[in-house]
C-alpha cells in the first residue's frame, strides 16, 4: 500500500507549489517532497516488494525498484540544487516550473510502478507534457523553438508507442482470446501471441519509446532541448526521463523475449545502439556548444544501454548497472555545465574558456564528470561500459565489440577537446561581468552526485548488488 504514497507525495507537493504565493518558498516545497520521496523509496526498496501495493495494475517489481531508486535519488540531488538555482534566478516566476518538477517526479514514479501497458503509456505521455513545461523555463525564442520541436517529435513518438501498445493488445485478443495488457499476464502466456503482431508491436514501441529515450535517428529533439533547458532540467531529462523510457522498453522487451522473439528484438536493439553511438560520436567532434555536447553524450549512452540489452546475457546486467552510473554522471555533468553557463552567460566555446579560473569547483566537477562518463576508472561507468564489452566478447560478437570500443574512443577524443577548451585557458575579459561564482548551495549537490558515481566504481552496497542481479534475472540475463 505504501508505494502509492510515492505518487501521492509529489502530486500533493505539486499542488502545494501551485497554491503557495511566494516564489521563495516553492523550491523548498520541491526539496521537501523530494526528500520524503527518497526516504520512502529507500524504505520500500529495502522491503524488497514484500509490503507494497499489490494490485494487478500497480506493483513494484525488481526492475521497477531499481529505476525508482535511481530516479528518486537523482531528483533529490536536482531538487537540492534547485534551491540555490532558483534563488539566483529569482527574477523568473517559478510557480509553473516547480509544479511541473513535482508533476514530473510523480509521473516517472508511476512509470516505475505501472504493470499495465496503457497506464505505462499514460504516465509516459504525462512526463512528456511536464517536461515541455520545464523546457520553456527561460521563455525566450530559443527555448520556445526547442520546446516546440520537443512537443511535436515527442508527441508523434508517444503516439507510435500507443499504436504499438494497441497492436500488442490485438495480438493478445487473437492469441489469448482476451485483449489483456497486464505485463505478468502477457509474459506468462506470451508463447500464444501471434508472431506478426508481436514483431510489429515491438517495432512501433521501440520507435515510440526510443524517441523518448533519444535513440538515433529519433534523437533530433535532444540537442535543442538539452541545449536550451536549464542545467537542472537537462540532468532530470538525461538521467530520469530517458531512464524511465528505457524501463518502458525493457518491459516490452521482456514480453517479446517470452514470446520467443528475443533474437529479433536484440538484433534491432544492437542496430539502434550502435547507430546512436555512431551518430553521437560524429556530432560530438568539433562541437562548439558544451550543453549540446552533453546532449550527444546522452544519445551515446542511451545507445550503450540498448546495446547491452541487444547483446543479452551478461550485457543485461551491465546495461542495468549503466542505468545507475549514467544517471548520476549525467547529474554531475549537466549541473556543473549549468554553473559554467551562468558564470559566462554563454555556452559557446567562443566565449567560454578558463572555467577552472572563474568557477574552479564547478569546472573541476565538469572535468571529473567527463572522465567518469567516458569510462575512466575508478568511476562507476568504467565498470558498466567494460561489462558491455566483456559481454560482447563473451557472446562472440567480436565486430560489435570492436565497433563499440572504436566509438567509445572517438567519443573520448571528441568530447575531450570541447571539455578541455571550456575549462583550460584564461577567462575572457567580460565587460558585462557575470556575478555568478561557485557557492556551496550549487556545488554540494553536484559533489554528492559525483560521490555516488565514485562509490559505484569502488563499492556497490550488497543490497544494491542483489537488486541489480534480481533485475537482470528478471529480464532473462545473468
Amino acid at each position: 500500500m505504501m508505494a502509492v504514497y510515492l505518487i501521492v507525495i509529489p502530486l500533493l507537493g505539486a499542488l502545494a507549489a501551485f497554491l503557495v504565493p511566494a516564489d521563495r518558498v516553492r523550491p523548498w516545497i520541491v526539496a521537501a517532497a523530494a526528500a520524503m520521496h527518497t526516504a520512502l523509496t529507500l524504505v520500500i526498496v529495502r522491503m524488497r516488494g514484500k509490503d507494497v501495493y499489490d494490485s494487478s495494475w500497480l506493483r513494484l517489481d525488481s526492475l521497477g525498484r531499481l529505476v525508482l531508486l535511481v530516479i528518486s535519488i537523482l531528483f533529490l540531488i536536482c531538487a537540492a540544487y534547485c534551491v540555490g538555482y532558483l534563488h539566483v534566478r529569482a527574477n523568473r516566476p517559478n510557480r509553473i516550473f516547480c509544479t511541473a518538477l513535482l508533476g514530473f517526479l510523480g509521473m516517472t514514479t508511476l512509470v516505475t510502478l505501472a504493470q499495465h501497458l496503457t497506464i505505462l503509456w499514460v504516465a509516459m505521455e504525462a512526463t512528456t507534457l511536464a517536461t515541455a513545461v520545464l523546457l520553456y523555463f527561460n521563455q525566450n525564442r530559443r527555448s520556445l523553438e526547442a520546446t516546440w520541436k520537443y512537443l511535436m517529435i515527442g508527441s508523434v513518438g508517444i503516439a507510435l508507442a500507443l499504436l504499438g501498445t494497441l497492436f500488442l493488445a490485438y495480438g493478445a485478443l487473437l492469441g489469448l482470446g482476451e485483449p489483456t495488457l497486464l505485463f505478468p499476464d502477457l509474459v506468462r502466456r506470451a508463447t500464444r501471441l501471434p508472431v506478426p503482431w508481436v514483431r510489429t508491436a515491438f517495432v512501433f514501441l521501440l520507435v515510440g519509446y526510443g524517441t523518448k529515450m533519444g535513440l538515433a535517428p529519433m534523437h533530433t529533439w535532444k540537442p535543442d532541448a538539452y541545449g536550451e533547458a536549464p542545467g537542472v532540467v537537462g540532468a532530470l531529462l538525461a538521467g530520469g526521463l530517458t531512464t524511465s523510457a528505457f524501463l518502458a522498453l525493457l518491459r516490452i522487451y521482456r514480453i517479446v523475449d517470452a514470446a520467443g522473439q528475443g533474437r529479433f528484438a536484440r538484433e534491432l536493439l544492437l542496430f539502434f545502439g550502435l547507430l546512436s553511438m555512431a551518430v553521437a560520436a560524429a556530432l560530438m567532434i568539433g562541437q562548439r556548444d558544451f550543453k549540446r555536447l552533453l546532449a550527444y553524450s546522452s544519445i551515446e549512452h542511451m545507445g550503450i544501454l540498448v546495446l547491452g540489452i541487444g547483446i543479452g546475457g551478461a550485457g543485461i546486467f551491465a546495461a542495468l548497472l549503466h542505468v545507475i552510473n549514467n544517471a548520476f554522471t549525467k547529474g554531475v555533468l549537466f549541473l556543473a555545465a549549468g554553473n559554467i553557463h551562468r558564470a559566462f552567460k554563454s555556452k559557446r566555446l567562443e566565449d567560454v574558456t578558463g572555467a577552472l579560473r572563474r568557477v574552479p569547483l564547478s569546472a573541476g566537477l565538469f572535468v571529473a564528470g567527463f572522465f567518469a562518463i567516458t569510462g575512466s576508472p575508478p568511476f562507476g561507468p568504467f565498470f558498466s561500459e567494460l561489462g558491455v564489452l566483456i559481454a560482447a566478447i563473451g557472446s562472440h560478437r567480436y565486430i560489435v565489440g570492436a565497433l563499440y570500443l572504436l566509438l567509445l574512443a572517438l567519443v573520448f577524443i571528441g568530447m575531450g577537446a570541447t571539455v578541455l577548451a571550456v575549462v583550460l585557458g584564461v577567462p575572457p575579459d567580460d565587460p558585462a561581468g557575470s556575478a555568478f561564482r561557485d557557492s556551496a548551495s550549487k556545488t554540494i549537490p553536484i559533489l554528492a552526485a559525483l560521490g555516488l558515481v565514485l562509490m559505484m566504481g569502488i563499492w556497490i552496497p550488497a543490497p544494491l548488488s542483489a537488486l541489480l542481479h534480481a533485475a537482470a534475472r528478471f529480464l532473462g540475463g545473468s
Partner: protein
Amino acid sequence: MPPIADSILILLLLMNFFILGTANLRAAIRAVALQGLLLSLLPLFVESTLTFRLVALVGATALIKGMVIPALLLKALRDVHIRHEVEPYLGFVPSLFLCGVGTALALLFADSLPLAPAERASLFVPASLATLLAGFLVLTTRRKAISQVTGYLVLENGIYVFGLLLYQAMVVEVGVLLDLLVGIFIMGIVLNHIQREFSSVDTERLSRLRE
C-alpha cells in the same frame, strides 16, 4: 462489421485526402473536427448493447475530438491573425499522390497481418494505418505550426480507429483522450508564445538551433 461502419471509415479516408489537399487552414481544421465526429459514431457499430460505458465513450469522443480541440485550434487561428493558407513544403499534388500510395500500402500491409475473422473483411486496420500515414504527411510537410498540430490530430485519429478493435480492453480510453486534450492545450499555449515572439507561426522561423 456492419457496412455502415465501413462507410464511415471510407468517409474518414476521404477526409484525409481533403485535409492534405485543401489550401485553407480553417477548412482543414473543420475537416479534422468532422473526422472526430465520425470517429465518435464508430463505437456504436462495434458494441451492440447500449451500456453507460458506450454512451460515455461516444460522448467524450464527440466532445473532445469533434468540438473542444477543433474549437481550441480555431480560436488559436483567430488569435494569431495569420493568413489562412496552408503553405506546404511539398506541393498539393505530390502529397495527395503520396497519401494515395500510403493508403494502398496500408491495405496491402493489413492484408498480410493475421486478423480476427470479424475484421478480415472490414476496413478498420487499413483505415487506421492509412489515416496514421496521412497525419504523418501533414505533420512533416506543412510549414505552419497550426498545420502541424492538425497533422498530429489526424495521426491520433488513425490510432483511435485501431483502438476500437479492442473495445473491451480499452479501459482507460478516457485517460488517453484527456492526455490528448492536455497535450493540445499545451501546444496551443506554445503556439501563442511563438506568435508573440516571432510575429508568425511559420515554423521556418524556428531554425536557430542548428549544428
